[in-house]
């Protein structure tokens, strides 16, 4: 992919954030004015364990170029154990996506606490950059959704 098209390319990125840590971490990034690209849109979920693999595939189907899930650090889950289940689910799902040839940089999990506004912003910057380097998602999209 040429540099020119990369400049044009504005990725669609969905971020699932748990209500208790990561969403609050994103809020802190906001109140600390720590910027990250507008390509990232956050969906609030009660816990990372609420994130169904079907949501992630759905995002890709509808044209997302990257999906990131953020939750409380292992051990700090508001519901004690939610992120442990989420961690296993996502590990397996990501491994499967990698296995069928979807670029593994398109999916990511990051544990972000309510105090980690800096980490949230950094993570999003990194992730967007990664998606830029990968370009448009073409392996997991439904062509009918192209505008």
């Amino acid at each position, binding site marked *: 992919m040429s540099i020119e098209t990369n400049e044009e390319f504005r990725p669609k990125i969905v971020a699932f954030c748990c209500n208790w840590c990561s969403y609050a971490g994103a809020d802190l990034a906001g109140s600390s004015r720590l910027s990250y690209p507008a390509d990232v849109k956050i969906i609030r979920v009660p816990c990372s364990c609420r994130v169904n693999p079907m949501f992630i595939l759905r995002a890709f189907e509808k044209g997302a170029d990257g999906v990131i899930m953020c939750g409380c650090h292992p051990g700090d889950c508001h519901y004690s154990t939610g992120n442990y289940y989420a961690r296993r689910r996502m590990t397996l799902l990501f491994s499967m996506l990698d296995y069928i040839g979807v670029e593994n940089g398109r999916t990511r999990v990051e544990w972000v606490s309510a105090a980690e506004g800096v980490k949230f912003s950094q993570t999003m910057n990194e992730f967007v950059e990664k998606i830029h380097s990968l370009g448009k998602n073409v392996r997991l999209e439904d062509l*009918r959704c192209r505008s």
Partner: protein
Amino acid sequence: MYKIAAENLQALFQKIAADQDLYLPVKVSDQVNFKAWSEDAEVCLDTLKTVKSPKDAFFPQSENLYTCKKEEKNISIEPQALQEKNFVVFGMKACDIQGVKVLDNVFLSDPIDTFYAARRDHGTIVALACHEPEESCFCKVFGIDCADPVADVATWMIEGELYWKPLTEKGEALTKAVAELLNDADEAKVEEEKAAIRAIVEKLPYSNLSLEGWGQEDYMDRFNSPVWEELYKPCLACGTCTFVCPTCQCYDIKDYDTGHGVQRYRCWDSCMYSDFTMMAHGNNRNSQMQRFRQRFMHKLVYYPVNNNGMFSCVGCGRCVEKCPSSLNIVKVIKAFENQGGEK
């Protein structure tokens, strides 16, 4: 009667594909199905049965009907264009051709299915006689002669040469278009081949299956027979039989939300599925036995009753080979045969 050497078939395909789409048996990941021809396609004319029947050349597994576009609060509708380009289906077997006739009765009678009709109009069928019929074949039961298929063009593959015989105007036109690749041939070899094939057909285990009692109007005894209750039991309610069948014509209409509007499309449905003909009030067949019975009653009774005795089964034997539970229409026919007095 013409012929072309097998090694020149690639040239023939190139020639046809130059100005039409060409569908023929192609191997992809070890399985042969009818696919659009391309330069590097692995064409498998010696495959007796493609996994799926070639019916989707005329009645694709899914096809768009129209598209709704949504802009702000306005909705505009774009109808789907009908088939406009000519195409050739190459290598269809006699049973599958009969399958298309079964579909014709449904889709070309009033109200005409315009999508299907357009495809039929633009499609030319090049039939290929069966060379080595197999034990699961029972086309003979339905009066089909796999040695002498009837289509726009009939062909036979004999000792490395494809014999070519146009039978219709469309067939003549195609023949003319590829004339430079064809040589004249006499029919003696073809007659010989036909006789050989027919001799094999006689030996097939299912060739003498009796359809007595099927295709008749007074079917309530059969409908109410306790035999169904036993027969359906292994059925897993999958759609394999339906989706490999050359005659199944049921479809479902669905909407897909593209984010900018809706695509309304239809796709094959299976009477074996629990949501088949599901309506607001529920389902009129809510047990697998009923769904199973519907499948075979339709193929062997309702369809022939409504279509001058033409059965909605062509004996291709795909369901015999593919059913995960080894159920099939032959077992159904035989079960009633064994019932004797039951009619």
